């Protein structure tokens, strides 16, 4: 399958005696949004960390754009085109919104080892940063200190920074959290169009968004993928209904 952009093959993770992930395999294909859902504590965060390189799996393989990246760290995976957003914002809170996006542009298209020229005067970086802010609808907030943003806006900023990297695959950890109904509708519309630029592995609790966006859904329960398929397949899957949707209803 040549259209697989990101794949996880048979990875596991255990903390002491507790096994957090058991032989998880999933893939992300060109042009799709693949949603990963599951109750809290199912191991979604662990899986994201393993994909992004901040935790090493005890076995198995992570492949990005056809290359085995299991041995690479977060920095190297980002350089290979992994665009990640965080559930709990990881932003330079004392810096302005614009500085945060410029940082992304810097990571993607320039060396940070430049010591003299004002980074805000570098037109190529500005262009990338402004475009990204525009796309997520944060252009008006460019000069605001990041700590003054609402939680939803921080989530949008996370997406904007990921955009500047022009990644080959997005991994987004609950981008809708804290957005509210209107905000989440806007972001849903935006992500809908984004999948053609690069596929998205979407971890999300907002089921409206998941059902509206996902081409495929995988359900993770107790560190195991119990079902994987289209929206309709998942809706009608007995195991899912029992294990997951059951306690939502």
């Amino acid at each position, binding site marked *: 399958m040549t259209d697989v952009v990101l794949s996880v093959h048979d990875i596991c993770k255990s903390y002491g005696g507790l096994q957090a992930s058991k032989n998880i395999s999933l893939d992300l294909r060109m042009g799709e949004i693949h949603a990963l859902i599951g109750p809290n504590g199912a191991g979604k965060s662990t899986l994201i960390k393993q994909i992004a390189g901040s935790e090493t799996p005890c076995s198995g393989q992570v492949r990005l754009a056809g290359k085995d990246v299991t041995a690479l*760290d977060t920095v190297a995976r980002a350089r290979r085109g992994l665009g990640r957003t*965080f559930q709990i914002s990881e932003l330079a809170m004392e810096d302005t919104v614009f500085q945060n996006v410029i940082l992304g542009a*810097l*990571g993607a298209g320039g060396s*940070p080892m430049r010591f003299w*020229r*004002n980074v805000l005067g570098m037109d190529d970086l500005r262009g990338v940063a402004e475009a990204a802010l525009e796309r997520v609808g944060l252009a008006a907030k460019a000069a605001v200190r990041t700590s003054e943003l609402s939680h939803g806006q921080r989530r949008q900023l996370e997406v904007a*920074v990921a955009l500047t*990297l022009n990644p080959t695959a997005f991994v987004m950890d609950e981008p809708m959290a804290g957005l509210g109904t209107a905000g989440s509708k806007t972001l849903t519309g935006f992500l809908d169009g984004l999948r053609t630029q690069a596929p998205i592995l979407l971890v999300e609790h907002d089921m409206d968004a998941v059902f509206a966006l996902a081409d495929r859904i995988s359900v993770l329960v107790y560190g195991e993928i119990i079902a994987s398929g289209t929206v309709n397949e998942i809706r009608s899957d007995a195991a899912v209904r029992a294990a997951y949707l059951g306690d939502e209803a």
Partner: protein
Amino acid sequence: MKAERIVNTSVVAALVLFPLWAWMTDAPFLITLATKAVIFALAGVGLNIALGIGGLVSLGHAAFFGLGGYAMGILASHAQAYDPIFNAPFVLEGTKSMPVIWLVAIISSGLAALAIGALSLRTSGVYFIMITLAFGQMLYYFSISWPAYGGEDGLSIYVRNSFPGMNTLDPIQYYVICVALLFAVLLFTSRLARAPFGLALGAARQSPLRVKTVGISPYKLQLVAFTISGMITGLAGALFADLNRFVSPTMFSWQLSGEIIVFILIGGTARLFGPVVGAIVFVLLEHLLGGLSEYWHIYLGLLLLLIVLFARGGLIGLLAGKERSHD
């Protein structure tokens, strides 16, 4: 921001006008005092690149101050004795030329900072503080136990080193050299803070994971920052040694490392002029309180406690308002 600019301009004006006044009223002692403040400020500005922008609390910067001092001491002592530093594989003579001494001081303290940083940055937080402190102490003990350059007694240089076209023995001329270097480094630091490097380094202080996620290695940023920081503090050490025409292991002492941090704290962390204000206040306090009481460190200690507990923005913070906190 605006108020801070006024503070900064006043500081620059004071650094120009005060020695000018001292020179016109023929008070060389005050010029020497001002030179000391300027050199301490330079050491603090150096540390502040690592500490203020990068968040790296180094408690071992005396290592670089001392290495700069010994670079001067070793080169000048060989030159004044007409005794080459070594003869094989080639003859290396000492020198009395300041620019060459500065270069050697900057390179040697930079190399040391690179090595110490490479090891210390494998950790963070409290470990980093303890390890930098320990490496500083290592050089202190080494300088005491290595007898070739005076050991515990240190090294005296009879005549201040030379700078082309200047009479360095004239206090005001040596002051001009030092303050010019300070201004040059301040200009460099203010550029660096706004350049891609400063942006990325500041972000790495606030969220290392954010920086990693955009494909930039915080370790490399911090190592480069630590090295530049060590180089500048090393230059300050060479100037300090030339001011006193004397180097000794006390330049490596942990108290000095602490004092360099104190300059930054008094002035205000992450402010461009923080260490400059801090060093001026420190030297003034030392002069004024030191004249009043033998035990002036008690008052310094109390003042520090008050600043840490109740005025976290330092003096510039008090004067210019809180721009940002450092946590």
